[in-house]
């Protein structure tokens, strides 16, 4: 079995640009969910989100002619590739898997709004060239000279985790020795309006696993990592943040927006990931939960965790309590949070958690990060369409 390590990380998050900035933010338990500035929010009950600050976006090394999402993706992928010390030759054989949902829709919406409101043709129509999610992979693949298999993966909020699982699969199959994988999501009006319409947004920063939670908070981010054959990485002296041990991917086939009430698909995904990793549930010390803060998700996820690990047997926390739900990027953002938690021996907290829901029989690390020398961890990502992806990592 080919062993796979993570040799580079890159993040642009609501805290700012850079993996170090991201880690400092979540380790401090800082909540980056604030009033929305990017789009109009009048008339909506929820008017907050975790945006990447404007000065950060302006400072990214990416052309302003590109969509916001393309710029976020390029900056994060560029950091990951540089962090892994990849040469041009390395990049020429690397696969690229980009998780995406919204694409460059933000700019497409601006064009559409303008045409509808003015009744005149807008020159912004060229924005339509970049509205599709595949635009990010084209931008990143071209700018970084990535010549291996290129895919744009859309599995709703599990996309980012799926990009890691599917990228690792290409390495295990011997297709490529390394892969740049990750996800990106820029805030869009459709996403913001849609979750408002579903009444799934809290008008205050989300409180995953809290007894009084009232919904999620939207966020935006880009996060990429370099996966690489362990032997190859060691031979070239590359950095190692941790080892990817295995993944499980399942589908509920139950409902388009609601999880299976008994968490059947979540449980299968976690069991499959543990099987693929070749480790028992008891080996896992920490679970980075999907933890959206919606009543339904947190209840069902807690039930599924209980069935897989036993009540109270692992530490559980939600990164979304700090950076919001970054949709297609979330799975990669949270996988990176998991890896850094293993590396630093520090479990990031669940921010805003004041009264634990009695239906959640776990220590969810409320408010303050917890030192814990954990060897292995699991990261969960679930999404619309009943998509479930679980990833298992080992400390590097």
């Amino acid at each position, binding site marked *: *079995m*080919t062993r796979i390590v993570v040799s580079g990380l890159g993040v642009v998050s609501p805290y700012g640009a850079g993996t170090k900035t991201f880690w400092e933010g979540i380790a401090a338990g800082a909540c980056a969910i604030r009033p929305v500035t990017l789009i109009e929010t009048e*008339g909506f009950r929820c008017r907050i989100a975790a945006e990447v600050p404007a000065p950060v976006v302006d400072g990214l090394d990416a052309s302003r002619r590109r969509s916001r999402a393309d710029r976020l993706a390029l900056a994060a992928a560029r950091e990951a590739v540089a962090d892994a010390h990849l040469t041009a030759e390395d990049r*020429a054989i690397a696969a690229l898997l980009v998780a*995406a*949902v919204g694409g460059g*829709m933000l700019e497409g*919406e601006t064009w*559409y709004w303008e045409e*509808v*409101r003015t009744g005149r043709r807008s020159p912004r*129509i060229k924005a*339509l060239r970049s509205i*599709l999610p*595949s*635009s990010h*992979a*084209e*931008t990143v*693949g*071209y700018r*970084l*000279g990535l*010549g*291996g*298999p*290129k*895919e*744009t*993966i*859309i*599995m*709703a909020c599990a996309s980012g985790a799926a990009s890691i699982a*599917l990228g690792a*699969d290409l390495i*295990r*199959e*011997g*297709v*490529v020795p390394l892969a740049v994988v990750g996800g990106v999501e820029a805030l869009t*009006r*459709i996403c913001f*309006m*849609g*979750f408002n*319409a*579903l009444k799934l947004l809290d008008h205050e920063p989300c409180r995953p696993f809290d007894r009084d939670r009232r919904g999620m908070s939207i966020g935006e981010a880009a996060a990429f990592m370099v996966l690489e054959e362990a032997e190859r990485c060691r031979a070239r002296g590359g950095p190692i943040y941790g080892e990817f041990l295995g993944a499980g*991917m*399942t*589908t*509920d*086939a*139950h409902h*388009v927006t609601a999880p299976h009430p008994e968490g059947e*698909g979540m449980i*299968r995904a976690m069991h499959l990931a543990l099987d693929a990793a070749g480790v028992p549930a008891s080996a896992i010390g920490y679970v980075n939960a999907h933890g959206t803060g919606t009543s339904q998700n947190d209840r069902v996820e807690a039930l599924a965790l209980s069935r897989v690990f036993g009540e109270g047997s692992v530490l559980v926390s939600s990164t979304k309590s700090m950076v919001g739900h970054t949709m297609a990027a979330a799975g990669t953002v949270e996988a990176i949070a998991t890896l850094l938690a293993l590396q630093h021996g520090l479990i990031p907290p669940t921010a805003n958690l004041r009264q634990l829901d009695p239906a959640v029989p776990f220590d969810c690390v409320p408010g303050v990060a917890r030192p814990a020398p954990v060897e292995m961890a699991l990261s969960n990502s679930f999404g*619309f*369409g*009943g*998509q479930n992806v679980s990833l298992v990592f080992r400390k590097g």
Partner: protein
Amino acid sequence: MSAWSSGKGERRGQRPRVVITGMGTVNACSVGGTDAVAGALAQGRSAIAPVRAFAINGCRSRLAAEVEASALSALLNRDTDRRLSRVCQLTVAACRLAAADAKIAGGPHLGIVVGSELGDLRSSEEFVAAFLRRGPAALSPLIFPNTVMNTMAAAAAIALDARAASVTINQATIAGDLAVLRAAALVAGGYARVVLAGGVDELCAPVYRHLAELGALSPMQGGGTEGCRPYAPDHNGPVLGEGATFVVLEERESAGARGATIYAEVKRGVWGNIPTPPHTAQHFRVDIHSPVRRFLAALAPGVPSRSYGSGNGDPGVDDWEMALFDRDLPEASRRSGFMPPLSLAPLFGQHGGLGVLRVAAAALDAARGMGPVLVHGIARGGCRTALLVGSPG
């Protein structure tokens, strides 16, 4: 090479062989299982005609290959499919046809891979248009999930009780080819024992109009006669089609054990990227390190016996594909009479299901005893694919 395998040709351990055991299609030429696909290909009649489904006044493009509304509605379950968006209905209908054709059942072993170029942009437009007309109160929580491109896979997974991995891939021109490749990888990698692999897109007025306005459809530069003429000197752009086509991929061993009809085997599949500026086709760009290039260069004399290409009349894509073939194929293969490759775009129009129709055509060729058939694809932006489909032996 006897099994689906890696770009390096370095298989790690004994991986399952991946075979095609069924097909289902709802396209502009035909609706049904394997017989319908074979019939449409044998007939060779183009479904491209002036657009009927919506008004195209003032639009410089006028042609498309449309699915008959009555053909689709006849396939739908009134109770369960009524509320699905049209592109989801196309997907569910084609998946059901493929599953019936292959005689497979749902369960935790069944996965889905959907390739799409455009997804459900009709729903996105409908969702925001309602908001702009009447404000937040007009937003539909039922339409919103359709704005996420995995909505087609989700609808199909529910309809068929497909509970293994379901993956959606967004890609221009070769979405279907990529879906088949990823599905073969899921089977070989053990994520699913059986996978419905397909592609889907639909025609809708705003998308058609905007693509025409952006100069993405024939006649691209506003000159020449509108039409789909892949690889021809007077090619001037693609003509859109619509529909869904799925093939059933599964482990050869389990297919044999259940007595399935095996049409063909996906012998090898590789994909890569030629780093190219987004949305462009630059035929001078080469992929020096590409697994696709290595794969083509290593083909044995006489292989392939036939080749299907992604040429769709877009001069950039057509010319790039020809230049890549000219550079990468061994001379013996280039001389064997299959240049230019066969294009199915003039029959069905360009859409996400077209690549799967190419794979289905190759499988039917193999089932008729033809030697290994190549299915090649290149898209603007540089994504490149190659599959070798042959007799399971």
